[in-house]
């Protein structure tokens, strides 16, 4: 029997992997992939908790919205990365440090 706990564990693993990618990767695209993973971990949590709401399926609905918004956000993020690349000739997040004091 697959309980809620298993879902939450997978979600947590997924979130951690995503977080690792965001923190450690030297490529903005992969960082973006990491972000996607974390969004998906959140979406998985929403769906997993949604099983216990048999009447309204609020969790599932919210997950759908989140997936759509994530797609839109990825589109914007990719556009930003493209522009960053044009400006810095690099997509390594370490090189993009003009905001430091």
């Amino acid at each position, binding site marked *: 029997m697959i309980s809620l706990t298993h879902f939450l564990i997978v979600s947590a693993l997924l979130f951690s992997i995503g*977080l690792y990618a*965001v*923190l*450690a990767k030297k490529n903005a695209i992969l*960082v973006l992939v990491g972000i996607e993973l974390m969004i998906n971990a959140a979406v998985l949590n929403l769906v997993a908790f949604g099983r216990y709401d048999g009447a309204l399926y609020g969790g599932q609905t919210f997950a759908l919205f989140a997936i759509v918004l994530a797609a839109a956000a990825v589109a914007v993020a990719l556009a930003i990365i493209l522009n960053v690349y044009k400006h810095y000739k690099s997509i390594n*997040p*370490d090189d*993009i*440090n*003009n*905001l*430091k*004091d």
Partner: protein
Amino acid sequence: MEQLGQLSTPILAALVVLFAPLVSFFIYAAAGKQLRTGIPAIAAIAISLTASIVVFCHVWNGEQIHQQISWFQIGEHAFGAGMLLNNLSAIMLLLVSAIALPVHIYSTIYMKGDSGIHRYWLYLSLFCFAMLGLVMADSLLLMYIGWELVGFASYLLIGFWFTKSAAIKANKKAFLINRIGDLGFLVGIAVIYTQFQTFDLLALFGEHGMVREALNDGIEWRYGEHGMPVIWLSIAGGAFFLGAMAKSAQFPFHIWLPDAMEGPTSVSSLIHAATMVAAGVFMLVRISPLFDDHVLLLIGTIGAFTALMAATIALTQQDIKKILAFSTISQLGFMMVAIGIGQYGVAIFHLVTHAFFKCLLFLSAGAVIHEMQHLKEKNNLAIDPQDIRNMGGLRKYMPHTFRLTLVAALALAGLPLTAGYLSKDAILIFAFEWSEWQSAWWKLIPISLLITSALTAFYIARLVFKVFYGKLRLQRNDSQKYHPHEASRGMLIPMLFLGLCSLFPLFSYNPLIFEDSWLIKGFELPETLERVNIYHTVIPAAVNGLAIVMIFIAWKWYAKGKYPQGSFQGALYQFSFHQWYLNLFYESGLVKPLLGFSKMLYAIDRVVVDGLVEKVTGLARLFAYASHWFDRSVVDAVVNGMGKTAFVIGGLMRGSRKGKIQYYIFSMFLVLLIVLFVGLKVFSP
């Protein structure tokens, strides 16, 4: 005291006398090197002479004139500046200008071609101005100013040839020794001012002056309210005499005068006749009422001793000017004796006659030296032009100079028909009469004077015979013939004038009896000593007898060349030749110990005082170092440490702020985690 409103003729004339040389001084000072002619100076002194004749005619045996303007005021004490014209200052004014004029004229020839001649006229004018100012001053203060100026001008003139080191040494010596005297004068003035609160000569020393009115009961010297112990009267007199001793070259301060011969001869003649050395005698006569018996005895003793000493030195000198210098010292000693025995008029009489013949002697010597210098330059000889051993036989070459010198020499020796006879006999006779009233010991003074006058006859005869008789001693040295020439007219005419003044008619119609001289009569004789008739016949006879014997010996020795063999090696000769070793004594007895003392003080200063100062500074520096260290390593360290700490903390803090986005995210996440963790711990039930 009338104000300077209506100027009477004598006052006006006196002002002219005083300021003509000053104007000349300023002309030369302004014109600088361009003005080489002596005409302004001669014109000025001629004007002075004319004006002083006017003054003399008005003042002599008339009313004394005292005119004063107020000069300045200190508190309640007013000080006046003015002039006091009486017989004394009138005769001195006349004398100074009458001596200065021929000297000026003579100088035009004597100093011709000298590169510094503009300075010469400048100094000479200043010298005359100073002396005239000193003579007519009406207060001790003005007199002191003139006194100092005379000293200063003589300093300049003695060192006129300042490239000669001997001249520089001589003028320094003259100046230093005169400073000692000046100190005496100043002390005297101070004592007088303390007692009487005035500098005014007339008020102090006049007919009914304060000094005469002051009471002296043997214990206290009292005037009005003010009194002081009677010793101060003697101190004041002694202090003034100290001033006169330095100025008038009395033992032991006479040593500057022979050295002062380094100046031009014309200057020497002026110094010796009328200006410098006369100042001391004049000053003593001016303040004569001040002297009590002790001071008078001191003056007389010093004078007699100086006269004798200088005469013995003059016997053996080889330098023509040195002989004359010591002769001056000796004659000044005579004047001092005259003052010491209270015969001020006689002192002035001798001063006046001496001025003329001594000036003439110097001018003649100058003419001879000039000629010898000329020979020396023409023939490239290595001789000292002033050494009488090189001279001789000049009678044939310079007959006029010889005759004039002879007149002056006779006057100096005190033979009849000359002015010197009158004044010297006066001093001798008065000295003998004075000694009648003293204890037996004081007979020594007139007797030493008698010996001195015999010595005087000898040394001046020696000079005349060595210079003018025999053969020119240069001639022996090689085969070349030398032909010295007679001095030029510009030198001879002033000398002739002085020669005429050295004879008796100027002073007395009777060539044998000094008491008939108008000059003596012009001065009040102090309570006349009983006239001891015997002296008035015996003394002149004795003086002249001795003089003639001496001159004969000198003639035999020097004109005929019959020296007594061996007499030039004796200890006495050496003693005299080295001027009684006084210079040596001063050198080793005073100068060297003084220098040694100074060196010791210097060492003390270096070791103790400087050492102490250095120790203190070392201590201060040490302290400074310590506080520096403290400041650096404690105070600064605290401040810097704070800054550094802040910097390090800041550095540490900003380590993560490197613009690395992923770090930011990491730390945000970490914070979130911590917050969550803490929140769970805190809020969990």
